[in-house]
């Protein structure tokens, strides 16, 4: 097994020292660009989102897979030249399986996720307001349960920060291009076999 502590190599990039105020301005700018793109992509729409879950409309998959290919190649290139730090969330197998299942059930019901929900609100889909109230209520519930969760679910399969290439002993320089090619092939297949 891999040692979680060593699995993620620290980069030599010093964390950028950005003043708090500038960071918030940057957040607004990034958020605005993100929201603009989400709306133009149509992924803040109920039918598009549920259409993806029903495997009828592949817009969401196209947006996400393209973003992953482009983001991954850029971020790993920058990381290789020590320009950025990675921000890896710790692996807790139990938490990610249970959390993923709950999220999936919620997704099928509300259709919007937290990010596309904010975009849906921006374009005037008012039903999302009730979904957002639910999101805040869910956070409240999580805070109530967090003591219990820390003692139980979060200890199940707690592996620390693990990255796939290290786990599989494949160099990143091989894994990243191979995964990018796989995603591009999948996009071609979607384009070939789906109507939307």
């Amino acid at each position: 097994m891999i040692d979680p502590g060593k699995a993620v190599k620290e980069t030599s990039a010093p964390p950028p020292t950005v003043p708090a105020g500038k960071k918030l301005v940057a957040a607004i700018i990034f958020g605005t660009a993100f929201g603009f793109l989400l709306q133009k992509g149509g992924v803040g729409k109920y039918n598009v989102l549920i259409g993806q879950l029903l495997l009828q409309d592949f817009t969401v998959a196209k947006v996400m897979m393209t973003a992953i290919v482009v983001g991954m190649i850029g971020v790993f290139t920058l990381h290789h030249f020590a320009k950025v730090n990675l921000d890896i969330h710790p692996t807790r197998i139990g938490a990610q399986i249970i959390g993923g299942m709950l999220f999936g059930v919620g997704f099928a019901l509300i259709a919007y996720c937290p990010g596309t929900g904010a975009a849906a609100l921006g374009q005037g889909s008012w039903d999302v307001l009730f979904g957002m109230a639910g999101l805040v209520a869910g956070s409240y519930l999580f805070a109530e349960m967090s003591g219990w969760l820390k003692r139980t679910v979060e200890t199940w399969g707690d592996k620390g920060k693990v990255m796939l290439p290290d786990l599989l002993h494949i160099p990143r320089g091989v894994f990243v291009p191979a995964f990018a090619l796989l995603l591009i092939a999948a996009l071609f297949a979607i384009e070939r076999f789906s109507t939307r």
Partner: protein
Amino acid sequence: MNPLTKTSWSPYLVGVGIGVLSWFSFATVDRQLGITTAFEYSAALTEQATAPQVVKPYLEAKAKDGKTPKIDWEWMLVLGVFIGAYASSKMSGDRAPEEKVPPLWRWRFGDSPGLRYAGAFFGGIIMMLGARIAQGCTSGHAISGILQLALSSWIFAPVMGVTGMAVAFLIYGKEGRRHV
């Protein structure tokens, strides 16, 4: 034609844009694009003001991780998403239709807005509970985490996708596909 006033862009162009955005967010502010934390912190701050006793263990655990809830990066990011989507839909005129209930939902559950609102609220609770337990959502895990090849996200995203599809088919059935 001005691209800003177009109703929709190619999903590939949008994907490239989001990918490039992630480079800038890593490079300039050392953060990935994540959304859910804003909701968690909003709830925590409200709770701190209204029921400090209940939320104390949670806040203590967060302080230990050096992540004291406050209005910060993620919160501003969510605000930005709202502004950006508003601007985009205003420029193109692609505003959400007036109808309170989405057509697919109406086909399955009838046109009572109350039922749709209750479904969205209940769905929101389950979704956020899942997101907080797994420590991420569609943005944080399914895009940012997958692209960083984090094992945590590679577990979360497929489980989320398969569960979401299974429940969507349970709710709407194959017949529903003709109504999207």
